[in-house]
């Protein structure tokens, strides 16, 4: 393992994770105003529909697939033990990967051709969409050329990812992988690294808490029942919905 390799498969992932963690917290706390989905639907809606929905749907399913193989590799391997089930898993994954690609292609095309969308596009939007495009194309190629990814990912790459996460980096398995897979891994690091500097920040603030919230929201500046009682201390938190 030369220096270059150890940088790409050990240094870079740590750098990416470090920048991602510190950067996201810094951006969220330092300038919450800048965290937004930056929706452009108000300026153009039709093409967005054919882009955003297949893109996000495909992306999220593919991401969950990776996550599953990372968290319960044994389970994935057991599932794949049966060829039919392996085929079902691979085909499903591939279909959502394609939907990711098609959607992102639409979005990218829309970003560079629609004059109104151009007005709200910056360099980082283009860079990150290009990186995502490269990533999904690499992923789809890997899936075709090196079968069966869902199995060898669970058995070979999951240990590598865990080794990084547990601070016992062991890139041996990756070094033995074909170039396409290596590129896929490097590019993934780059994407994670760039999250705090791009619109991808929005995935960190996905509003699931909405489901547990009553519809109405009233915020008081002081607790109106206590405000007239001189013995009550000021409370620094603002009462809500009381």
């Amino acid at each position: 393992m030369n220096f270059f390799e150890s940088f790409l498969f050990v240094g870079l992932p740590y750098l990416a994770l470090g920048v991602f963690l510190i950067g996201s917290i810094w951006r969220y706390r330092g300038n919450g105003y800048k965290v937004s989905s930056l929706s452009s639907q108000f300026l153009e809606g039709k093409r967005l529909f054919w882009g955003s929905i297949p893109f996000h749907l495909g992306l999220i399913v593919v991401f969950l697939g990776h996550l599953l193989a990372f968290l319960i590799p044994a389970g994935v391997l057991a599932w794949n033990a049966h060829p039919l089930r392996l085929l079902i898993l691979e085909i499903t994954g591939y279909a959502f990967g394609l939907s990711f690609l098609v959607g992102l292609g639409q979005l990218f095309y829309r970003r560079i051709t629609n004059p109104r969308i151009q007005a709200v596009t910056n360099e980082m939007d283009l860079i990150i969409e290009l990186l995502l495009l490269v990533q999904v194309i690499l992923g789809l190629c890997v899936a075709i050329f090196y079968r069966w990814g869902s199995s060898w990912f669970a058995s070979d790459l999951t240990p590598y990812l865990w080794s990084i996460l547990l601070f016992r980096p062991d890139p041996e398995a990756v070094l033995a992988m074909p170039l396409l897979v290596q590129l896929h891994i490097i590019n993934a690091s780059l994407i994670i690294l760039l999250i705090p500097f791009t619109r991808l920040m929005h995935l960190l603030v996905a509003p699931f808490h909405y489901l547990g919230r009553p519809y109405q929201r009233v915020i008081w500046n002081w607790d109106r029942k206590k405000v007239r009682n001189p013995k009550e201390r000021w409370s620094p938190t603002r009462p809500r919905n009381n």
Partner: protein
Amino acid sequence: MDIRSQISMVFHLDKCIGCHTCSVACKNIWTDRKGAEYQWWNNVETKPGTGYPTKWEDQSIYKGGWEKKGDKIDLKGAGHRKSLTNIFHNPHLPQIDDYYEPFTYKYLDLIESGPSSDQPTARPVSLITGKPMNIKSGPNWDDDLSGSPDYARQDPNLEAVTPAEKEALFQLERMAMFYLPRICNHCLNPACVASCPSGAIYKRGEDGVVLINQDVCRGWRMCITACPYKKTYYNWNSGKSEKCILCFPRIESGLAPACMHSCVGRIRYLGVVLYDADRIHEAASAPDHELVDAHLNIILDPFDEEVIKAAKENGVADSTIRAAQLSPTYKFAKVWKMALPLHSEFRTMPMLFYVPPLLPVMASIKNVDQSAQKEKMNEKAKVWPDKWLYDTSTDELFGTIHQARFPMKYMAEMFSVGDENKVEEVMKKLMAVRIHRRQVTVGDISEEKAAETLAEAGLTAEEAEEIYYLTSLAKFDDRFVIPAAHREQAMELMEFAGDKKGDTGFGFKDGTAKRGL
């Protein structure tokens, strides 16, 4: 009983002259920024007309507001399920072209273009793309276009009006219009708040102003769909939603909001009302025909001992209770029952009430014999062979209400969920006050007749005088009763002074930890 105070508003439509001063005052203070050029937190529409954004009242297009499902209500185009499933693409989001594409002119071309055989022109350019464009619509594009097929006839409120009435409304000689100024209604059951997945929109407990926390808004753009009045706007540049803030920095220091302060027709009133927050849900879920009453019923009498006691227990300040007692909006909406909410059927319980317009002046057309007059004229004089007179004396009293140029049904669609009687009652009051004042000042109506009209409208002479005063003579302090005592706490509505206590000295707003940096 959970008594809270709410800043409410009344717009007296008879007095609006459609000058748009309010809109411009607001624009100059708040929305003169990139991404907000198209936003008119205050706008004035011509009715009948399609409004801004186009046909906003038609919820089969925009899916705004609440919808009754059995005993319950839920948001129509957003809500717990839809706000999440539609998050990647919101199928009910209005587009910029539903408002208009903001533009400016290249004025410098007039000055800087070189010599040529043609006049230089200032071409319109889009404020979004910066490219030349053809202007297809703009703010108040349908201003004063009553009767026009593209605008007036497309008014969603005309759907309930019979075809004959509709035709009559658009006959050239009978054509009429009025103005409808609109701002955010600072609703009691705001759909915008309910739809926001991030929880960025909230109602301020102390005065009921509905605000969007710009630091928390993540641009999921659900409030744009949910507000049936289309009074939250998406800033396409910052990726955040924005809305009318009722000039809260002004209100906090006892000043009227800019639109109200600048209103040329002095049509606007602002004051506090006390209401029972426990009954909001029940009122918002009332059946259609009871909605207006349910809405007005949760506003309570600020002179009632019980109410005052409960309000005090809830921490409502004495000055606020006093303001509620002096409130012009309480008088118009509750005491005189002359102000009605706009489109109660959206069930957001708006806190902006409208006195519907009686104008154009009601009159009857009388047949007269003009031959004697004609005899006196020079032969060359142009004489119209008309045999009628536009008679504004009031022999028939209320008879003219039914011959009003605006079908009662049209008004009812806007102001009383289709109940013509409700609007008619208000019209009668407006008419009765006029007749009463005409008797006092002109004297061509007998005292008995005037008293009879007042009685029929359910008013006393004293009340009529009070209405007349508040309508026509009211001074600034009568129209805007804003509890002033909170001045010392004004800053605290923005941030909590206790947080800073013992933390920073004069001149610093950063905490001690940050000062060393």
